[in-house]
Structure formats: structure tokens, C-alpha cells
């Protein structure tokens, strides 16, 4: 097992694989398929201060090697998540990461503070990049100084390590990463979805009720790899990488680019077993490419 293990701030991962936020709910549904204790960690669906219904449907569309989603942060609110969802996940021998979202600085602060009350959450993922929230969440994700501010506020409010989840919809990802690092982020999580749209030919209208949605899946992997490669050379905090991972070779590519752990999102929809299959495959793939452990791979693709 130690061949696959990785330590990150607040997280003792038995392996570097975790489902990405929003693609695994709070774990209940996938627990019918396999024992969640196999996972390095679980990143929960975004939590906001109060319950949200989210956007109208349709909320998803299929694209070439990818999909668009505009769920709109539907969730039962942080208190119910702490009361009902975290205890369920805590029964498993895995690490729990809470995805924190909001529309205002205060909401972020409140959600982060609320998770202090839960003994079972190991780290926060600060979602400043959800492109589907209109009230203002988006501005945090594309402006370095706003991103730094929300990071500071959440760091102050929280006892837990904070991984800031970056949006790829920016001109300069390195500037965003450095801004949140300076503001005290313990790690980064990248990338969130790329804003896209599909127009439904028959109705002549955007297919998603929200019009735009976030593009995820294999289509965006090259963008994720590029951003992680660029950022990992400019920051000292670790990166949880994601964007289009579907197999263990993809994981290797993310680790080489400089990620220290890897989240799997969209691929769960196609194959509910994808996370465990990747975990099972990983030792073979490490060996095939001449590595003795996951730690051994991290950042090896970054030029010296």
C-alpha cells in the first residue's frame, strides 16, 4: 500500500485517487457499487450556507469526449451536510474533503467555519471557480486579488487545510495560483470546468437551461495538464489534479505534470467503478513506466 500512499496537508492518502466534487454526491450512491474505504479520499459535492435548488433543467449535455453541466450548486446546505452526509462517509476508512462554495465572502466564511464543527472533515476544497453561479461566485475565480481575499477569509475561519480550486477560464493561471498561495492556501485543486455551450438545433436555443455550462471529461485533459505543469513550477504548495482522468495512465500523466493526487469526475458517470479500477491498475502502470511509487512520479515530467 505504501507504494501508492501520499501525504498532503491534512490528508493521509492511502492512494492518490479521489472522486471529484459534484460527481460523487456524498458517496451514498457509489457505496452500493464498492467499499468507499478503497478510495484515497472523497471530495463531497459543494456546500453552501443554506440549501440551494440550483439551475433549471436540462442541466447536462453531452459533447465530443466530454460533457457540459450547469447544476448550479444544488445541495442541502452546510448544516444538513454535516448532520447527515459527513457521518455516513465517516464510517469509511478514507479522507473527507469538503467543497466550500458561496456567493459572497460571508457565505464562504460561514460555510468554512461550519465545517470546524465536524470532526470528520480532513480538508476544505475552496470552490471559487464554479462557472454556473450567477450571484458572484464567478468573480472570485478569475480575479487574483478577489481569489486571495476569499482564501484569506476562509483560512481565518477554518481550522482545516484549504485547497483552492482554480478555474481554467483565465488568461493567467500562474497569477491566480500565486495569489492564493500568498494568501495562505495549503494546496491547489485544478482544474474546474471550462465554460462552454451547446446549441440545440431543433429548438434553436442553448440546450442547457442555464445557457452556459462547464465542460469536463477527456476533452479538457490537455488544458488541465498544461495548467498543472505551469503552476507546479511556480508554487510550492501541492496540487490535486483533475480534468478528464479515465484511467491509470492519465493519473501518471497528471503526477508527472506536478500533481500530488488526482481526482476523477465525469468518468464516474460512464463507469461507476472507475476509481477503484484505477487504484487497482496503478501499481502495474507505475511498474510499466519504471516507477517504484506514486511519490516517485510526482513532478518528474517537469523540466529541470
Amino acid at each position, binding site marked *: 500500500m505504501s507504494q501508492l500512499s501520499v501525504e498532503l496537508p491534512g490528508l493521509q492518502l492511502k492512494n492518490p485517487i479521489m472522486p471529484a466534487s*459534484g*460527481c*460523487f*454526491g456524498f458517496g*451514498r*450512491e*457509489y457505496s*452500493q*457499487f464498492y467499499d468507499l474505504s478503497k478510495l484515497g479520499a472523497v471530495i463531497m*459535492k459543494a456546500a453552501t450556507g443554506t*440549501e440551494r*435548488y*440550483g439551475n433549471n*433543467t*436540462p*442541466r*447536462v*449535455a*453531452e*459533447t465530443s*469526449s*466530454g*460533457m457540459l*453541466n450547469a*447544476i448550479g450548486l*444544488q*445541495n442541502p446546505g452546510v448544516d444538513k451536510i454535516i448532520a447527515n452526509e459527513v457521518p455516513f462517509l465517516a464510517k469509511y476508512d478514507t479522507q473527507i474533503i469538503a467543497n466550500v462554495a458561496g456567493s459572497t465572502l460571508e457565505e464562504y466564511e460561514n460555510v468554512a467555519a461550519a465545517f470546524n464543527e465536524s470532526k470528520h472533515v480532513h480538508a476544505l476544497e475552496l470552490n471559487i471557480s464554479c462557472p454556473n453561479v450567477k450571484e458572484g461566485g464567478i468573480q472570485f475565480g478569475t480575479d487574483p486579488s478577489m481569489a486571495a481575499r476569499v482564501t484569506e477569509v476562509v483560512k481565518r475561519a477554518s481550522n482545516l487545510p484549504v485547497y483552492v480550486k482554480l478555474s481554467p477560464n483565465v488568461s493567467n493561471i500562474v497569477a491566480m495560483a500565486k495569489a492564493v498561495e500568498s494568501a495562505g492556501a495549503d494546496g491547489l485543486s485544478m482544474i474546474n470546468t471550462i465554460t462552454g455551450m451547446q446549441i440545440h438545433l431543433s429548438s434553436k436555443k442553448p440546450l442547457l437551461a442555464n445557457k452556459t455550462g462547464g465542460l469536463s*471529461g477527456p476533452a479538457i485533459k490537455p488544458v488541465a495538464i498544461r495548467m498543472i505543469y505551469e503552476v507546479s513550477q511556480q508554487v510550492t504548495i501541492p496540487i490535486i489534479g483533475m480534468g478528464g482522468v479515465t484511467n491509470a495512465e492519465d493519473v501518471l500523466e497528471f503526477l508527472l505534470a506536478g500533481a500530488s493526487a488526482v481526482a476523477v469526475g*465525469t468518468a*464516474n*458517470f*460512464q*463507469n*461507476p*467503478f472507475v476509481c477503484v479500477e484505477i487504484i487497482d491498475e496503478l501499481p502495474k502502470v507505475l511498474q510499466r513506466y519504471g516507477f517504484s511509487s506514486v511519490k516517485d512520479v510526482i513532478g518528474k515530467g517537469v523540466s529541470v
Partner: protein
Amino acid sequence: MIKKEKVVIRASESIALDTIEMVLENVYISETAIPGQFLHIYVDRHTLRRPISIADVNRETKTITVLFKKLGSGTNRLADYHPGMMLDVLGPSGNGFRINREDSTVLLIGGGIGVPPLYNLGKTLAEQGKNIISVLGFQSKEHVFYEQEFQRLGETIIVTNDGSYGETGFVTDVIDSLREYDCYYSCGPIPMLQAVTNRLQTKKGYISLEERMGCGVGACFACVIPTVGEDGYRKICKDGPVFSAEEVKL
């Protein structure tokens, strides 16, 4: 419980315009599926699975029948699969139709590709000795399927929008003139379901809904529908696809 299963395609046939009937062999699903549940089918080269209702189950041959319409890229690809090939499906998914012991006559109202789940339901209800009336709407004559199958279950009225077969118009044009029934079950396009539930407000009824899905298991919040009551919403893939007619806001 939903499982990820391999099913073997035993037959695949076009039974009406753009409409494919596929017989799939799988022990687990054929033994556990109830009417109204669906399969979430992986189609190669497609990111998302396709939800398709279970139209019939045969526990002897261990087969499930699905009927689907070639509408877009995924269903067209699925139509290319031939007998002998395997499909990767999640299922049986969703809740299925609620069957009330006290009902003696039930009305099935199907529209187009919403007809298939009603067949599995109708067969089960018929086995339980209930009287069945079926009203099935299609665009036109070439789209009609399973008329004889439904007739074997009871009185069956076919309606086509263009009058090229059976009655002319919409299913709602004929349901007023039917004899008494205790409960209705309906599946079809949203406008049809809206018309049906409006017209039959005084009746007990169940409707099966469609929505674009991500996970198909209840994890992603793609397929929600608001409820009439206080408790907000339901997930069509997990809490549905069948809801009681007064439960959700169409």
C-alpha cells in the same frame, strides 16, 4: 439494487419507424427488475450513458426487452449493435411503478416512445387479474408498435396525431369517453403528461418522467424535478422515474 452488468444482445429488430426492439439476456436484471425501471446503457464513443426503460421481462429466458427510438447519436449507434454483442448497463435503475392492491381497472396512457414501460406494467397488472384499458398515442401509422401486445392485455385504443391510423388527435381526446377505472399510469412527452395530469386531476395517477442524466444513480443532481410540496425536489433517476401525478411540478 443497481448493478453494473454485462448483457448479451439476443435480438435487435426494427419494429416501427426508427424504433428498435432489443432483447437482452441477463440473469440478475431479469430476475429483479420491476415495471417502470430502466437500464442506463453505455454506448461506445459516448461520454454519457443512455437511460432506456425496461419494456418487458421474461424470467424463464432470463431476458429483458427494451424498445428505443433512434433520435440522436447514441440511439443511432445503439441501433448498430447486433445480436451476440454485449452491452454494459447499470440496472435495474429507478423506483418503478407503484401498484395498488385495491385497484381493479387501470388505464395506461402512453405517448410514442413513452409506451414501452407501460407494456411491462400492463403485463404485470394483467397477471394480477386487473382489467386494463390502454390508450396509446403515436405521431402517425408508421410509428405504431405493440398494438397487438397491448390488445392481449385488454381494450386498446390507438390514436395518431395525423389520423393515419386509429383515432385522430391526442390521447387526451379519447380519455374522457372511457369507462370507469381506478387509477391511471402515463408515460410520454412532457406536454402530453401535462395535458393528462390536468385533465385527470381528480384521478389517482402515476407518471413516468424523462430528463437528461449524468450519473443515472442519484449522485450528480442533473435530473431533478421540483416537487409540489415543501421538500423541494426529486431525482428522476433515483426517486423516479415514476412519481404520483400530484407529487411533482411538470
